């Protein structure tokens, strides 16, 4: 049986909300950053560091990274609990799901640690 113990907040309703709020934050960040690249064709290294190194962008990047980690965890969790079940993959489903979830967590830990270090180390 698939239980909620590994979901982000242990409650489907609040996972649902976190999924939505994080989606809006990531969307705003993506639009800002893609807009910046599109609006600045002749970008130099100095421009890039100045842009991402400003305090407001450091904070925005931090918010976006944390939102992405929460959003992706909930999303990947939902997918795993849809497909990695006894009905689809047989008796080892719980073990398989735990391995899959561990890999997702590992990737997201690296993503958060690396991302925060990268942006906060900018001068």
């Amino acid at each position, binding site marked *: 049986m*698939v239980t*909620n113990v590994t*979901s982000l907040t242990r409650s*489907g309703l609040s996972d649902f909300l976190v999924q*939505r709020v994080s989606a809006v934050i990531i969307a705003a960040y993506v639009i800002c950053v*893609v807009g910046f690249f599109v609006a600045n064709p002749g970008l*130099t*290294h100095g421009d890039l560091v100045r842009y991402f190194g400003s305090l407001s962008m450091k904070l925005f990047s931090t918010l976006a990274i944390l939102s992405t980690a929460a959003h*992706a965890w909930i*999303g990947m969790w939902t997918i795993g609990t849809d497909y990695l079940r006894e009905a689809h993959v047989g008796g080892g489903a719980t073990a398989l799901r735990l391995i899959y979830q561990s890999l997702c967590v590992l990737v997201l830990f690296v993503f958060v640690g690396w991302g925060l270090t990268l942006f906060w180390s900018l001068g």
Partner: protein
Amino acid sequence: MKSSRPVSLTLNPFKFSWPFTALASITHRLTGVALFGVLLGALYIMQLALSSPAGFAEAKSLLAETWIKVLVLVVLASLVYHIFAGLKHLLLDFHVGDTYEGAKLGAQISIVLSILVTAALGVWLW
């Protein structure tokens, strides 16, 4: 609180008729997984470009390679579709367009907008 989540039906994807809205929905799921898959790669490019002027030049020449441009466009297309279909989801949550006809129209609108924005980004990339 319920301790077990409701799970999706056990359907055989090869014996399922795949109405248009189902294809739009599974594409949102697939693009979500694709975005998860490229998170670390995107950080790598960002780190390279931010590291030093030489790293910036290296990142630029990487992005000038055709196969990488194609990959970047596929990632951008996934991101754009995931966002438009995601925004449609948020509207559905407020009961905007959550009828059978509305869902079809919403999926069509999100696909058309995604194609337009992706095409514009493609023009910008090349």
